[in-house]
């Protein structure tokens, strides 16, 4: 029933619906024609359903091993486990673009479903802009990367997936990351709609912020998952390689973080309006450009997508229309937008402006480092590579002041503030940071890690102080504090939690700079010393797997003679692709990871030796835990009543009508 042709047809149908969705409501909004505007939600939901059918037919083809579909033949195989047959659908270029379009369709449908309380013209325009963007991507999918193309004669078996992708972490990483990328299409559409209307006000800020926060939560989780995947799958013991593809996700994260902060200023004080609109356009533009750069093959990266310059030209044209068009509209309309509330440099607004400046500088640095090699190669015909030393030297000095201001920014009052009373409240946090700095001087080596560790504890302590201050903890009875904590707006608790999450991540990063490792070639039975642990290679055995054969080691780790853990790092050879992967063994106690990798076998069969790589990674899990806490804080503030899209209007309507909805 769900044939590839039906999927292809549904995709074409979605494209037509998206085009109508992009045009009719815009005309309706400009003519104030209620009937035309009212078409928007239905079209958006219809487009999403068509995309859903299309996506399901591709999943169905993958699950039923329909190798007459070229995409399935190239990326799947009969022997592949069912889970990876499903997740493999988005493990390749064509499928991932279809997933991208589906998520964009879901965003449009979400605005249609949850945006009931938006002014009808604004909602029609937002949905229309999403429709226009979706049209472009669906056309791209249909014309240059058709996931449903057939091959004839159909091969008996597929080529199989890159074994590196055969991993649960990576299987769910793309949907989450894409939801983050594509989610920023909604703030983008709000920005374009506001520019068309020529009006940005506090209400606009209130409507756009939940969408931005939601997208930001997904992007945060997506980046953390990607980093965690490279940590435990690639087996190099690293977690972030400043690879162009990683940077392509970090850049919109930085501008997106700036966006969710500057939107607060728009909402509360009607200031920074033009800047916020630009950030909303910029964040989505960077999301789009990231995808484009990864797929066009301009950047050198470990992430393999089929590089096809012809495809790149189409995406570049699409980007030109989307980004160029929106920036042209910005250049045309933004100068006429009126400036809003004034504020003193030392104030909550001032702190948020500083946050924006620092985040955007960080973004500029990462962007420069990423784009420098191809531009050098284009302009001066010289190939160079920019790596970790550049990024470490440039990003940390910019990040440190950001961390320091993060501590007291949320405690500053709006409009005009005095620094000293706020700093007085933070005496405990300052002491914590100073003690941390003193401890770090003795335990960590290097100036930057010491400063980062102190800054991390400063952020955590300051965030907790903020909550303690607001609940008057220890200054009134404990019951009263609990009562006050219950009454606190979730947005404030969410902020404190997200900021503490940043602190935890930074602490993990600082500690990871002290990671130790050792590469040895040893016969069975040898004991190695690393970081106070004794690592003994007990045995190496062959183990068969479903579509690979493995060589697995037994590695005993002891500390002062006491057995800590037995680890089984292994090395897998995949039959279908002539490829081997390393299966890292990680033992964690949440304070440190013991990380073992089995390498090649050398020597004769009678007396073999094995290459082992052993790592001791202090506080490694904290990096990803912190990111999860950040996303949790974002989600918590999203659940704040004030953040809900319709809440302010509902409060204004009479009780009789609220009971209906």
């Amino acid at each position, binding site marked *: 029933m769900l044939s590839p042709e039906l999927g292809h047809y549904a995709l074409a149908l979605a494209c037509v619906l998206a085009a109508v969705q992009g045009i009719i409501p815009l005309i309706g909004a400009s003519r104030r024609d209620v009937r035309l505007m009212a078409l928007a939600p239905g079209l958006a939901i219809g487009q999403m359903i068509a995309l859903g059918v299309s996506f399901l037919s591709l999943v169905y083809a993958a699950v039923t091993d329909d190798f007459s579909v070229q995409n399935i033949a190239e990326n799947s195989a009969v022997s592949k486990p069912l889970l990876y047959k499903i997740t493999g659908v988005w493990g390749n270029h064509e499928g991932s673009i279809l997933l991208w379009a589906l998520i964009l369709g879901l965003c449009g449908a979400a605005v249609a479903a949850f945006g009931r309380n938006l002014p009808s013209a604004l909602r029609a325009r937002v949905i229309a802009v999403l429709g226009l963007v979706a049209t472009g991507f669906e056309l791209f999918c249909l014309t240059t990367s058709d996931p449903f193309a057939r091959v004839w004669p159909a091969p008996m078996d597929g080529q199989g997936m890159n074994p590196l992708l055969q991993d649960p972490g990576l299987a769910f990483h793309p949907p989450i990351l894409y939801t983050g990328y594509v989610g920023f299409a909604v703030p983008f559409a709000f920005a374009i709609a506001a520019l068309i209307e020529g009006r940005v006000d506090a209400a606009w800020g209130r409507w756009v912020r939940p969408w931005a926060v939601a997208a930001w939560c997904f992007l945060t989780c997506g980046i953390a998952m990607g980093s965690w995947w490279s940590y435990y799958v690639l087996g190099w013991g690293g977690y972030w390689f400043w690879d162009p593809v990683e940077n392509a996700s970090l850049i919109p994260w930085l501008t997106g973080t700036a966006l969710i902060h500057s939107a607060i200023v728009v909402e509360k004080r009607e200031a920074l309006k033009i800047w916020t609109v630009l950030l909303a356009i910029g964040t989505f533009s960077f999301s789009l450009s990231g995808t484009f750069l990864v797929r066009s093959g301009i950047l050198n990266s470990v992430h393999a997508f089929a*590089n096809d*310059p012809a495809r790149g030209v189409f995406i570049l044209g699409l980007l030109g229309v989307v980004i*160029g068009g929106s*920036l042209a509209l*910005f250049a045309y309309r933004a100068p006429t937008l009126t400036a809003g509330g004034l504020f003193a440099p030392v104030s909550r607004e001032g702190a948020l402006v500083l946050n924006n400046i620092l985040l955007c500088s960080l973004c500029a640095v990462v962007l420069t480092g990423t784009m420098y090699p191809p531009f050098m190669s284009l302009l001066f015909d010289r190939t160079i590579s920019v790596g970790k030393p550049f990024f470490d030297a440039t990003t940390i000095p910019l990040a440190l002041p950001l961390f320091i201001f993060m501590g007291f920014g949320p405690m500053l009052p709006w409009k005009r503030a005095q620094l000293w009373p706020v700093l007085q409240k933070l005496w405990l946090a300052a002491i914590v940071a100073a003690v941390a700095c003193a401890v770090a001087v003795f335990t960590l080596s290097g100036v930057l890690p010491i400063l980062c560790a102190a800054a991390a504890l400063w952020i955590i302590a300051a965030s907790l102080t903020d909550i303690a201050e607001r609940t008057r903890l220890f200054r009134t009875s404990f019951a009263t504090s609990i009562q006050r904590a219950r009454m606190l707006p979730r947005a404030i608790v969410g902020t404190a939690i997200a900021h503490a999450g940043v602190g935890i991540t930074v602490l993990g990063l600082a500690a990871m700079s002290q990671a130790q490792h050792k590469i040895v070639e040893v016969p069975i039975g040898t004991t190695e010393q690393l970081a106070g642990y004794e690592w003994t290679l007990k045995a190496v055995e062959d183990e068969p797997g479903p579509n690979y054969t493995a060589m697995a080691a037994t590695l005993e780790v002891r500390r002062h003679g006491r057995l800590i853990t037995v680890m089984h790092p292994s090395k897998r050879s995949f039959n279908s692709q002539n490829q081997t992967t390393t299966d890292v063994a990680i033992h964690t106690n949440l304070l440190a990871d013991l990380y073992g990798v089995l390498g090649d076998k050398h020597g004769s069969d009678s007396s073999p030796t094995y290459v082992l790589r052993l790592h001791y990674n202090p506080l490694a899990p904290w990096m990803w835990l912190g990111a999860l806490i950040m996303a949790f804080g974002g989600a918590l503030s999203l659940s704040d009543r004030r953040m809900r899209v319709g809440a302010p209007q509902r409060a204004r309507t009479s009780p009789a009508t609220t009971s209906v909805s």
Partner: protein
Amino acid sequence: MSTPTDNLTRRRLLMALPLAGAGVAGFAFWKMLSGMEHGSFNPHDINAPVLDRPVPDFPLTPLPPTEGFTAQDLQRTSKPVLVNFFASWCIPCLAEMPTLMTLQGKLDIWGIAYKDKPENTASFLRHSGNPFTRLGDDHTGRAGMEWGISGVPETFLVGPGGVIRWHTATPLTEETINRVLLPLAHRLQTP
């Protein structure tokens, strides 16, 4: 003193800056892409260690009925030779075959079947056509290692005297052939 109109003009210029920046970046990307398409710009060039060097020594098993070849054969030839690494398990190689077929008679193409079984190579060439005047089998991948390839298909243009003059790690296209490859081969032939 700035008048309100001056101020508005300044704001207009300021607000147009993002557009200008995006325009410059877009133009540069377009240059890179078009350069990649006809082979003059290759961001992955770092991975071609043998470019402008003599061909390395490499082991190769001849695949009947054609004769195989060695580094010495490439050094002795007076005409430029295109050396193409391919495999029957590689779909881009299959896509590239018709393009290679159009080169027959214009340029000698010597093929190296990379990490493949001889019977698979034979049936692959039976179906797609055989553009190769000489063909060798690199079952172990040793020859590929000597040439420093990163995958298949990968193509090298070897000039007279056995010096590698040009290299691409993507499937050849008509445009690359007509704009870069054939003019370069022509120049190499008539010094």
